[in-house]
């Protein structure tokens, strides 16, 4: 809740604030879906400021356990905006994303991503 996340796609939003994690009582972790409010947006984008959107956390500074028991962490907190069905709103994804998204059935984001870590 209330975490400011960078938006790393070309949906038009620049910064969103988490207002609800759709799973888990401890808040969203890497790969989780959140409900967010758009705080900053580029003019002429698909998403406007003040809109309530869904997003997938693709980078988190908080470390997350991997399936082999090791941990992974990222530089910042970033999100890719999706619609209610889980399809990305934008057509590009910037920066590295974790391969765990495949497990969460966000294959589309993975295929759009520049790097997979």
């Amino acid at each position, binding site marked *: 809740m209330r975490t400011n996340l960078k938006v790393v796609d070309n949906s038009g939003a620049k910064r969103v604030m988490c207002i609800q994690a759709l799973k888990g009582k401890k808040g969203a972790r890497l790969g989780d879906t959140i409900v967010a409010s758009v705080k900053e947006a580029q003019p002429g984008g698909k998403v406007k400021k003040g809109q309530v959107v869904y997003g997938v956390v693709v980078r988190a500074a908080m470390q997350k356990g991997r399936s*082999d*028991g090791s*941990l992974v962490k990222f*530089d910042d907190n970033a999100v890719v905006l999706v619609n209610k069905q889980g399809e990305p709103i934008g057509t590009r994804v910037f*920066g*590295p994303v*974790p391969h765990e998204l495949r497990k969460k059935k966000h294959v589309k984001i993975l295929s759009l991503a520049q790097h997979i*870590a």
Partner: protein
Amino acid sequence: MRLEKCWFCSSTIYPGHGIQFVRNDAKIFRFCRSKCHKNFKMKRNPRKVKWTKAYRRLHGKDMTQDATFEFERKRNRPERYDRNLTENTLKAIKVIDKVRSRREETHIKNRMKGKKSKITKEALKELDQQIHMIKAPGAMVKDASATTSAKVTVKVQHDTDENRMEE
């Protein structure tokens, strides 16, 4: 399964160990334990931290060039399973390991070669110059055989020389 190397100390990271940090330019930094991760967060240079492999290689502490290092390589193409090949590889691992440890031993031995004579030399020098710290100069004159070893007799002569000058 792949055994990675720690970014900081170059030790092997076995599956399930350590943490990996992905920078925004997608460079991956793998760490074998929290010690290495913390040192990275402190922005320490592994070449300047004495316990890392990078420091030891840079300062000639460890063997750097050896044919046994050539076997350890990153291969991106998986080898097709062959029973004989696997058996031979498993045998070779032991042999290579033995050879390497032996060579490392000789490397350290060579590195330490002049060490003992240097230590004794320094100790002798200290004894020569600081003998008054353990025995008063007068006592040395009174009892020449205070210490029995040959090197001390040299010192006694030295002291008597000084005494003569005083006289």
